[in-house]
């Protein structure tokens, strides 16, 4: 992992040339960002309300990243492995639920009982994603538990493609329009109602996740396995079961994220999991991989930077069409954070300090 060098970094008394270069690059980038922001703010092109809008959009997008990032980070915490198929787990929930939503919409149930439908959709999507996540674990990862760490990484990429193209084969490659839920249309103060639904959905899910991890025996087992797998096994924890639970919970949240995503963007497609998956992975690393609050904060930070960054950093320089650079900004920030804080914003946690 890119974050595996903190020790040499801190203990090395003399600065090596490469580190000097890295620090210089970091400092220059920070300078660019700072000067750009000051110039933009002094130009006064945007009103306060518009800045507020930027941040609201960022948080809405960021909370979905956060929800997916939790799945990455939990699996990493337990298995020390990046589950690259997680973006597709997210997609499979949203795609499958489209058919339920479409049916509910056409039968009129969606209009008559919007809240029941919404909860049903969330649960259904969660269950589908959960099943897929567990199957992926069972088929692509568990047989390779003892293999070198690169091997499950490769099967993860394979599983990801398999899921993408299975869904393409099953449901076609076109974009499908999600039915809009009438009660969630329009604005409440400055927020879109769908955005509020996303905030609330994410907050509740996070709270339930924390309760689950802290208050239940299964949660305790997961934490024990994350701390030290061998010791946990010796203490009588069923490691396989804890791992399956991790995948199941991560998958369930990805499914919920899928429906929330569909609420905001109103359309789904077989390829929709790829970019959010990559972004959520970035968010997880940003916040400190293996660290649950870190994943949530990383997601929000990434979403807000993507939304605010292009205007704030580049408008001052008069760069045209700066919004195209939002991915550049997002990943540059990631590099910066990794330079100055190699373990992410909140630091790596959930597992111990052992690193291979």
């Amino acid at each position, binding site marked *: 992992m890119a974050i595996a060098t903190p020790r040499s970094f801190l203990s090395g008394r003399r600065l090596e040339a490469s580190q000097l270069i890295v620090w210089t690059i970091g400092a220059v980038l920070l300078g660019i960002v700072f000067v750009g922001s000051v110039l933009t703010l002094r130009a006064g092109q945007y009103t306060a309300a*518009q800045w507020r809008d930027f941040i609201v*959009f960022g948080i809405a997008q960021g909370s979905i990243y956060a929800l997916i990032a939790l799945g990455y980070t939990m699996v990493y915490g337990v298995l020390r492995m990046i589950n690259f198929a997680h973006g597709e787990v997210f997609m499979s929930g949203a795609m499958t639920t489209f058919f339920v939503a479409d049916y509910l919409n056409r039968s009129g149930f969606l209009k008559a009982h919007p809240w029941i439908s919404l909860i049903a959709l969330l649960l259904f999507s969660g269950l589908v994603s959960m099943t897929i996540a567990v199957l992926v674990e069972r088929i692509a990862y568990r047989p390779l538990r003892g293999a070198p760490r690169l091997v499950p990484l490769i099967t993860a990429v394979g599983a990801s493609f398999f899921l993408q193209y299975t869904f393409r084969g099953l449901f076609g*490659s076109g974009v499908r329009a999600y039915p809009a839920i009438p009660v969630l249309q329009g604005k409440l103060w*400055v927020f879109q109602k769908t955005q509020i639904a996303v905030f609330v959905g994410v907050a509740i899910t996070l709270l339930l996740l924390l309760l689950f991890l802290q208050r239940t025996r299964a949660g305790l087992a997961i934490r024990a396995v994350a701390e030290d797998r061998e010791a946990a096994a010796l203490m009588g924890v069923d490691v396989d079961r804890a791992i399956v639970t991790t995948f199941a919970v991560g998958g369930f949240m990805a499914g919920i994220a899928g429906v929330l995503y569909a609420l905001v*963007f*109103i359309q789904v497609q077989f390829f929709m999991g790829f970019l959010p998956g990559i972004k959520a992975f970035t968010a997880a690393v940003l916040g400190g991989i293996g660290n649950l609050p870190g994943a949530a904060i990383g997601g929000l930070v990434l979403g807000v930077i993507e939304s*605010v960054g292009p205007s704030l950093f580049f408008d001052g320089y008069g760069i045209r069409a700066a919004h*195209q650079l*939002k991915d550049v900004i997002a990943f540059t920030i990631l590099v910066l954070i990794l330079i100055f804080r190699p373990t992410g914003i909140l630091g790596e946690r959930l597992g111990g300090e052992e690193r291979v």
Partner: protein
Amino acid sequence: MQRSARLFTMLLLSLVFVLAACQQAEPTPTPAPAAQPSPTQPAAPAASPTPAAQPTPQAQVTKPTDPIGVLEIKPGEPIVLAWMLTVSGGTAQLGEDSKRGIEIAIDDLGGQLLGHKIELVGEDSGCNPEGGQAAATRLAANPRIVAIVGSSCSSEARVGAPIIDQAGLVMVSPSNTAPDLTDPAKHVNAYLRVAHNDKVQGRVAAEFVVNKLGLKKVATIHDGSLYAEQLANVFAENVKKLGGTVVAQEAVSPDDTDMRPVLTRIATQQPELIYYPIFNPAGSFITIQAKEISGLENVKLMSADGLLEPQTVQNAGQASVGLYLSGPDLTVLGPKYQEFVQKYQQKYGTKPVAGFHAHAYDATMMIVEAIKKVAVQAPDGTLYIPRKALRDALYETKNFQGLTGNLTCDPNGDCADPKIAVYEVFSTDTGNWSDSAIRKIYP
């Protein structure tokens, strides 16, 4: 240990079988596809391609020579035409619609050309440069292909056309519109198109906005693709020429889903109209999200032929009502086009789903016409198609009576008879596209 040894022998065995199978399969395809002018046949100087419109079997017909090669089609072998279109993802309707145009053209020919069956093969080019490159490479590797109808999106042709050119094939695009592709400095010899050049579309769109709607402050958004960027720029230039101002020129990426930040940026300049000639799904995200932005509640939205498909309305729903779309004007086409639409409906159970079916039909027919001109039939029934002569014949196309008008090719590959209209989405009912959802409002 033992297990791995067994596995190894099994692998080895299967490899042997596969090799054996290949050995067996190899002799079947008859040799000498796209044969070079063979030195063993210096023959008569009369070996230059003898154009025979009515290939009458003559005793002395020899194989013609040609600088880039001669395709030889034995009796009983099909004439292979290919499509290179986007038939998956958000732009699938655009390519699928064109593909149907080709299929109907082949039906109209009775599936036969010069006594050979016509076989249609194809590659999905995905509406991006990578897809165009991959599809072109795969088609270039097939020596039996005579000519290609494609590509759908300009960015595919930018990288695909040089590959097709290298391979000695020729392509006629039904829907590439970027001015760049037929720019004399960048045009490659293998490339022609029957779609309009966006210099025309951008101008008509600008005239509509400034003269008809009377709007002076516009913003543009492109997605970094060749088509979108050039069309947005042509539009912006023409708006300025007509006395309007372009207050913002923004860009998104084709994979973006959250357009709210970029729209908020645009809102600070308070444009009266946003022109975003891009593709689905990015286009429909803008359509949906624009109305949510404070400051853009009353802004007019306008896009171009990339979004002229039911998907645009299906995805954006109510938000798409009032959207303006420029594109090929199909309403002024003659009775031949109406007949074509009838066949389309009979064959596919729906009205044409995008704007470039008739263009694809014309591209196919233009190619067929050129093949008829240059093909030489030997007494034994073998058909020779000289490839360079085929290209030349396509460039010589003059007053070709197509569905889309009178096609005449210029040396840069522009063959279109451009007719541009502006449509307005007035309903979300796409059941009977195009009548049920869009109507022509200009000119």
